[in-house]
């Protein structure tokens, strides 16, 4: 019997197609021959798997047909538990977010490293300054103990800004700029310094009037601006021109309140960024009127700055004792800035706004 014939026999046997007599014979053959017996078992198993495989495919086809009738999308929308937006954002994009965050952190660290800010310079600086003041304290204690008045080298301890109120060298600034001064110099836009003296102060209004006493000083010529007697309106556009640094700085903003800190009617509140050194700068409106004297930043609040109203300045000027000047101060009434634009106005101001350098004892 060849293999093909045997297979046919096996299949007929397994399918129960054999006649009883034939079947009996085949079973005898099977019992006597393990090789044939194994073949039968193997074929039976294989045919079963093949059949089951077919049934499985058929069942899957049926199930797929059923599945296609279900609106899975709508169902999924309904059954999805939606976590809060942030949670789902995190779940869906956490890898991207993590990468972005690491890049950001890396960028910050490398920037800090490159700019050298990582090495704690700030705190060193602070420490240093504290040590200096400590030393100074010690020196003063020593001096007091020994009764010696050591000569102290003069350095310009403070800087501020002042502006001319008369052509003959009267300069207005803040009292706090010149308070405690040993000597005062003013420096014009061309960089030339003149010695000045404090002529008159009104500490309660934070106003000081200086007079240039330097022999090299020449008359300034007609003052281009005038002084506003009335109060400025809210939201009026104003600007300052001062010396927070070695070169003059222009800044503009608006009058944001008619009262200053804690409702103080002395001041305007203005929206101009003010830096140290701006104190004493003129606050000028668009028509070239002096409306105030920049007083500086009095609080830590951002964007809250103050200027002393011009009416107080005018009062102070009127209050200067006549014996300290030859005659009563006559304020300029002829405004030559009114018809100019801001750029031209500022150009003209250059000669009338001074850096005030203060040397204390």
């Amino acid at each position, binding site marked *: 019997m060849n293999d093909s014939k045997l*297979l*046919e026999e096996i299949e007929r046997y397994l399918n129960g197609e054999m006649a009883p007599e034939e079947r009996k014979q085949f079973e005898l053959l099977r019992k006597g021959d393990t090789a044939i017996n194994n073949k039968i078992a193997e074929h039976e198993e*294989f045919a079963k*798997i093949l059949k089951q*495989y077919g049934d499985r495919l058929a069942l*899957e086809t049926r199930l797929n047909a*059923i599945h296609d009738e279900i609106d*899975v999308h709508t169902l*999924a929308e309904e*059954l999805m538990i939606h976590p809060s937006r942030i949670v789902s954002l995190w779940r869906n994009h956490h890898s991207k977010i993590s990468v972005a965050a690491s890049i950001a952190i890396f960028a910050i660290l490398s920037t800090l490293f490159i700019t050298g800010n990582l090495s704690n310079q700030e705190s060193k600086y602070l420490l240093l300054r504290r040590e200096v003041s400590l030393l100074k304290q010690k020196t003063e204690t020593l001096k007091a103990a020994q009764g010696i008045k050591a000569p102290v080298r003069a350095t310009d301890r403070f800087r501020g800004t002042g502006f001319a109120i008369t052509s003959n060298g009267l300069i207005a600034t803040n009292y706090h700029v010149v308070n405690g001064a040993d000597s005062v110099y003013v420096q014009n836009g061309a960089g030339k310094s003149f010695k000045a003296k404090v002529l008159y102060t009104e500490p309660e209004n934070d106003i000081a009037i200086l007079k240039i006493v330097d022999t090299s000083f020449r008359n300034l010529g007609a003052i281009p601006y005038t002084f506003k007697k009335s109060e400025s309106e809210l939201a009026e556009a104003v600007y300052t021109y001062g010396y927070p640094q070695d070169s003059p700085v222009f800044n503009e903003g608006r009058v944001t309140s008619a009262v200053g800190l804690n409702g103080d009617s002395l001041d305007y509140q203005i929206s101009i960024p003010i830096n140290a050194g701006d104190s004493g700068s003129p606050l000028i409106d668009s028509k070239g009127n002096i409306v105030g004297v920049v007083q500086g930043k009095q609080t830590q609040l951002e964007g809250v700055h103050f200027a002393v109203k011009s009416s107080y300045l005018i009062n102070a000027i009127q209050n200067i004792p006549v014996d300290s000047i030859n005659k009563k101060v006559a304020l300029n009434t002829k405004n030559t800035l009114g018809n100019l634009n801001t750029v031209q106005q500022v150009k003209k101001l250059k000669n009338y706004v001074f850096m005030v350098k203060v040397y204390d004892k």
Partner: protein
Amino acid sequence: MYKEIKGSIPTDSEVILGILNNSESVLKRLYVAYFPMVLQLIINNNGTPDDAKDIYQEAIIILYNKVKAGDFELSSKLKTFLYSVCRRLWLKRLSQMARYGGDIRDFHEYSPVDDEVERQNDMDIQFNKMGAALQLLGEPCKTIMEDFYINNRSMQEICERFGYTNADNAKTQKYKCLQRLKKLFFQQK
């Protein structure tokens, strides 16, 4: 958390009788009745609707074969059985994909069904091998094998279909095909 699923849910005994009688309508009602439950489980545990389809169909097949084999006992509810199988299958799939965080959000009670799932897994391996072997076999062998062993067609029919001049030629051809198919099947790891 769990939403009651509406629709005409067949009773458990209806399902068993329906499967035994090859009832298409019962199979459909069964499928439609419990699919939302499984969809809910899968999509709320890192899966997609397509994953849900795969898992659910596998579970239905397990149930179907169990009923056909006559060893499905109504010891627990059919719903619980389907849910448990899907849950087990999904956990397995998740760990294979390394997406399993060690926690699964459950919507139903469940019972241990490891044996069923393991048995099904063994069967799946065999079927995959068979599918691959049939693909490699090529035509006309593939169709001859399918016709004879799956669709239960007689040699006479096959003979006519493929235009063999006599039954002996067809039988020889069938024998050769089967030998090749066995070889291809057992060769696979």
